[in-house]
């Protein structure tokens, strides 16, 4: 009996250390790959292409983190998630980072225990509607049936917008975005609402894209970006500066083709970001040449945009660099 107690005490002792003093970076390095929770499928943001390869702007952020840590952008295991399980998967430690067009809000930063580390894409919520219904403005939507994904900020914005404008509507809370599109096509609902990026992607994927129209009203601000768990600030820094490297590279005029030409650059910030000078990589706890690896393998923001969001036909708009009058701006690499 004494032995039994010793054994159980041992088991309990070893279990209790499982969560305490979490060091995500160490876990990722030990495991040999990054676990990144992404969207199961929105064209431009995160989707699998015809070859089964993950594509999209959110996916590229995961690859950048992998490049910074391992020097290889492909050491990522993508975990497709729904709007319903995405935060739980991150909170429970199943995923290391959530890069899944999730909106940065106060309550998610505090109550859900998430750290949003930056903005991958500035977005706003809109409506997609069949032109046959003859509606040209959101003000004419009284009595309409709306398909929404449950558990999203989209859902809350919608309720607030229709309450404010005193328009009555009937919600159909479908389980996944794919189901929402199916229901819209079948005519179960009159309109679909989500971020305008999502709408552009849906419109492009319709059999007759010209039959569909995105209404002019954008009813919300949706800054979409990667998130990590509270409590591991170093890990948050790695994710944040991996994203910032992509954006910063564009500001500095570096891209995947010319990155090798900057070895002898006279611009010290460029030398620092590429790891030729200083030890920014060491501060983060990743490779010394993290910037070089990210830019070489993933590219700068313009390159990432060109191979992902540009295909949906959505202009950069707010997501242009601040130098072109957009909002994408990063703190200095120093």
């Amino acid at each position, binding site marked *: 009996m004494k032995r039994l107690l010793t054994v159980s005490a041992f088991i309990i002792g070893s279990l209790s250390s499982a969560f305490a003093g979490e060091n995500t970076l160490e876990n990722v390095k030990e495991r040999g790959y990054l676990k990144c929770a992404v969207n199961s499928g929105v064209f431009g943001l995160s989707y699998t292409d015809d070859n089964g390869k993950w594509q999209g702007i959110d996916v590229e952020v995961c690859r950048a983190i992998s490049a910074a840590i391992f020097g290889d952008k492909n050491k990522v295991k993508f975990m497709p998630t729904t709007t319903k399980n995405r935060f739980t998967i991150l909170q429970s430690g199943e995923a290391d980072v959530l890069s899944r067009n999730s909106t940065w809000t106060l309550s998610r930063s505090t109550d859900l225990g998430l750290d949003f580390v930056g903005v991958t894409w500035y977005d706003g919520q809109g409506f997609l509607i069949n032109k046959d219904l003859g509606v040209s403005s959101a003000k004419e939507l009284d009595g309409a049936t709306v398909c929404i994904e449950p*558990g999203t900020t989209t859902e809350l914005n919608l309720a*607030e917008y229709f309450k404010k404008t005193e328009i009555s509507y009937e919600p159909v809370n479908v389980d996944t975005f794919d189901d929402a599109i199916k229901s819209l096509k079948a005519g179960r609902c009159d309109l679909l609402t989500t971020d305008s990026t999502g709408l552009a992607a849906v419109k492009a994927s319709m059999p007759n894209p010209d039959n569909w129209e995105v209404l002019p009203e954008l009813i919300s601000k949706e800054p979409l970006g990667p998130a990590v768990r509270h409590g591991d600030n170093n890990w948050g820094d790695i994710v944040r500066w991996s994203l910032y490297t992509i954006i910063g590279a564009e500001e500095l005029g570096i891209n995947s083709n010319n990155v090798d030409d900057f070895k002898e650059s006279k611009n010290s910030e460029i030398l620092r970001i590429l790891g030729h000078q200083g030890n920014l990589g060491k501060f983060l706890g990743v490779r010394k040449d993290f910037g070089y690896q990210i830019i070489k393998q993933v590219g700068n923001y313009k390159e990432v945009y060109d191979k992902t969001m540009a295909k949906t036909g959505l202009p950069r708009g707010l997501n242009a660099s601040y130098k072109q009058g957009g909002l994408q701006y990063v703190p200095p690499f120093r």
Partner: protein
Amino acid sequence: MFDISYNKKFRSIASQFTLVLFLVVVFYYFINNAIINLDRIGITSGFDFLFSRAGYDAYSPFFKFTSDSLHIDAYFVGLLNTLSVSILGIFIATILGFIMGVLRLSNNWLVSKLVYLVVEFKRNVPVLIWIIIWYFGVFLQLPSAKKAINIYDSIFISNRGLYFPSPVFIEGSIAILIAFIGAIIINFFYVKRAKKIHIKTGKQSPIFLVSLLIIIGLPVVTYFITNQPIEWVVPELKGFNFKGGMALKPEFVALLMGLAVYTSAHIAEIVRAGILSVPKGQIEAGMSFNITRNQMMKMVVIPQALRLIIPPLTSQYLNLMKNSSLAVAVGYMDLTATTGGITLNQTGQAIECILMIMGTYLLLSLLISAIMNYINKKVQLVER
């Protein structure tokens, strides 16, 4: 020297005590671990969130639910939706199941083989697939609201649902209610008298037909005598959709059909097994009386078969109720979709929400079990 550890009684108590202690420690560890980690990442635990504003809209046929309602209201929306689809599903599945189970034993080769095929097809495809087939394959394929199937300008069938007139009770409609209650009382005495006559003289009365006539006929006659005091609100196509009247939404009907049809196949097999379990001698003895085959089934076979049918039937009912949580797949706002889905996601209170729905399903299961156990006791052999 006497060693206490060789005492049999002591040893058995000690080992059990150790086991209980071990379980307590394990549970304590898990709960404590959850609390510590929730605290560490800054998630507040507790059930306070139930009384904060929900912020989302959900279709609720039973009471008004808006984004200003509370999360606890959303829980009740889910609970009522789960209950309504479960109860109706159990009802339909039982009727369908009994019919199919009896037909399966029909002497007509074609009927019995046909039912056999249907049953096997239904119970060998997962219920989730059935629900999705009903929703996307059947109900969403119906015409749009503008081209709805119009039945006498009062019932409209479209992919927005089945719309039919709703009654509005105006002055004088109380008479119909009184007539209805009166009819039930009259019927009660009629049945009592008919049974008495049956026992005394052996003469059978058409109880079922007469009862139907009394209970439906009397209120209907009253309705016309009192100058039709019920007005009907007919659904009308306005803008995007029908307004007025009552509606059965495609999500509800698809889930109901999926659950009922799937479970009915299982019930059919249970009913068949129950009937086949009645010894042949009982049937032959029953047939030797001067009664029809139907009467023999009703009085000899079914009562004995029920003893075997009820216990497995109970577990089918439980399955149906729990399977209703697949509602999420078609966007029906059941318990798993409201508290276990949207509320969980908007508030992040995963442990609390899951505990709530677990507790609720457990309670509903125990309730169904209790009712079925009561019925089971009634049909069991009374031993004297």
